[in-house]
């Protein structure tokens, strides 16, 4: 088991997430894609924690923080999307262009 395999998984997961954030039209799916990116970062954290043999395991603790924050983020994100949907009967991010210059 080399570190490379874990990093490939992380990179792939991050790229999928990024692709989803940029291309998905549905706001919920954009949020899901963000979760994918966060998961990729977590994999990287844990991988390097083991690889570097950190006695304090900062990488693993940090990934726990990220999971907790991600949960909170999803909670707020879903709430915002829900309110947008209620107001506009749509969750399409392309239509949310009130800030257009």
């Amino acid at each position: 088991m080399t570190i490379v395999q874990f990093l490939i998984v992380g990179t792939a997961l991050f790229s999928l997430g990024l692709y989803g954030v940029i291309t998905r039209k549905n706001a919920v799916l954009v949020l899901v894609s963000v979760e994918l990116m966060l998961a990729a970062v977590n994999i990287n954290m844990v991988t390097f924690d083991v690889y570097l043999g950190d006695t304090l395991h900062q990488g693993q603790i940090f990934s726990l923080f990220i999971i907790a924050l991600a949960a909170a983020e999803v909670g707020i994100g879903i709430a915002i999307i829900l309110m947008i949907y209620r107001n506009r009967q749509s969750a399409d991010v392309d239509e949310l262009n009130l800030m257009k210059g």
Partner: protein
Amino acid sequence: MIQLATSFQQLILATAEEGSNAAEGHGTVPGITDGFLVEWAWLIVVVPLVAAFLIAFFGKKLPLQGWELAFGSIAFVGVYGTVLFFLNATEGIVYEGTINVADIGSFAIEWGWMVDGLSIMMYFLVGVVGMLVFMYAKGYMHGDIRYTWFFASFSLFAGGMLVLVSAPNLIQLIVGWELVGVSSYLLIGHYWEDFDNVDAANKAFMVNKVSDAALFIGAIIMAVSVGSFSFDAVLDVVVHGESGPLSQYAFWAGLAIFIGAMGKSAQFPLHVWLPDAMAGPTPVSALMHAATMVTAGVYLLGRLFPFYLDVSGLFAGDVRTIIIIVGGLTLFLTGLIAIVQDDIKKVLAYSTVSQLGYMIAAMGAGAYTAGLFHLFTHAFFKALLFLGAGSLIHAVHSNNMSDMGGLRKKMPITFWTFIIGTLALVGIFPFAGFFSKDEILASVKYAGGDGQGVANFILVLGLIGAFVTAFYMARAVALTFFGEYKGTAHPHESPKSMAYPLIGLAFFAITAGWVNIPGVYTGFTDWLATRVPLSGMGDHHAESFDWPVLIISTLLVVTALVVGWRVYGKDADTQMARDRIRIPVLWPLLENKYYIDDLYMSGIVRPIMGPFARAILWIDMHVVDGIVNGVGLGALGVAKGVQSFDSNVVDGLYNATGAGTGAAGTILRKSFTGRVQQYAAFSFVGVIVIVVLFIIF
């Protein structure tokens, strides 16, 4: 009070002791060369000048309308001058304080104050005579519409004279000279509603300017050849008899400075302004003819005396011949004019010119002490006579003696003081004028015997002048105080503020001559001699009475008084009838003042006024207006340029900034699509670019 006097005495003694090791001199050894009394003597000059400005600005708000300031300042000068005068008489004072004002090249411009015998005598004269005249003026000018302004100019007049006599250099002397000139202009033209008075003021100013031009030239020649404006530097060269630039140009410098003195001291033929200056109020005439202004020329000759005396024969000794001739002609010719005048002030004015002629003649004869002694005594009795005449004018509301007569009983104080002044002027023993005039005549005779040939001729003129003086004064007294009153007003004795100064001056008119009696007490000679070592310089003044001259002149004077009384004493129906004797050719000549005024008018004034005025008008219309219009147009052009710069460049900058910002916004707003995903893509690209850059560099 006793304590105060004692402490004051100690003060003076302490002041005297400080400078006991003093410089050498003739007669009285100068005992005082420092101490606060001389170091603070600049106050004598400054106080009247400050008072003049204070009166001009705040005088009207004061309870006595500025008179108190004027009198206070001149009384200060009088008291300070008296203290210095007595200190100089007992101890001798030589002090010179200077403050450097500016340096121009190698010339230092200095303001200073001289405290020596000559200056102290002038401080004393200006202060004491001025004090009495100012007191008199309070009553005389009462009710005048420009009362406050009069006292402001009067203080300036006294202050200007003090600047002049305190000057240790020619620059400050000229400053004082011009201050006196301008304030005399203001005072002579005091009643400017009457156009004649304005003419008189203009005449005085312009005649003085002619001589001032000569004074400037002389001062410049002297300063350039010596390298300094200070009298000390000039006299140093003279006393040591150094031949150099000064001795080369001495004649022209001496002549030019003498012409300057001729103007202020009203010498023939520049005397024409002085009789016309009678247009001013009488107190002005009194001060102008006694202690200030006309004495300036004599003072200047006295200040530069070693230069004119010229022991070494290198300097302006030749000018003295001109001086004595001018003085002799003046004393004789103007004395004659006084005989035919009806205006009492003009009689006295011509008398003043004549007496100044005596002083100048004495200077020309090399008699420093005699000339200044006559200046000293003349100041008192001529001020007395003028104030007496003012008292008469105040009473009868006319200047003309044909409106007077018989005032002896109605105005006793004026009468007796006027008689004292007359006896002092004509030179009757023991009044002041006797000693000073006799000293001049004796000195002129001495000069004649000492190789100055022309002096014998001047001596004859001086003796005839003594006769003429007594004759016109006898006439004036007879026509005003004796006979029947011919005027229309109701004369009465003048108020006390006018009577007391007359009494004060009468005291001096009797006693002022006693300070220099040959063979008895010659203190005056020593008082003035402290600065210039005169024994070494050979002051030609007579050391003793010259009995033949003394007896002849006294006989002439007494004869003249008797003749004058016989001619004019008899009463007649009209005053004009009393004054009717006429000598065919002489009288018209005298009444027209030798046609000198007409000569100046048609020879100088009119030719200048006509074409000159036209030339000035042309210059004014073409050159001055052109310059003014040019300046205006130039200013307009500049304004237009500024306006176009403002509206184009400055406004343009602001507009360009605004427009640029707007255009940038128009372009950049296109990138703000409002799409979140696009922003995310941009930031991802940005991150990649940054990472790539990190890796590369």
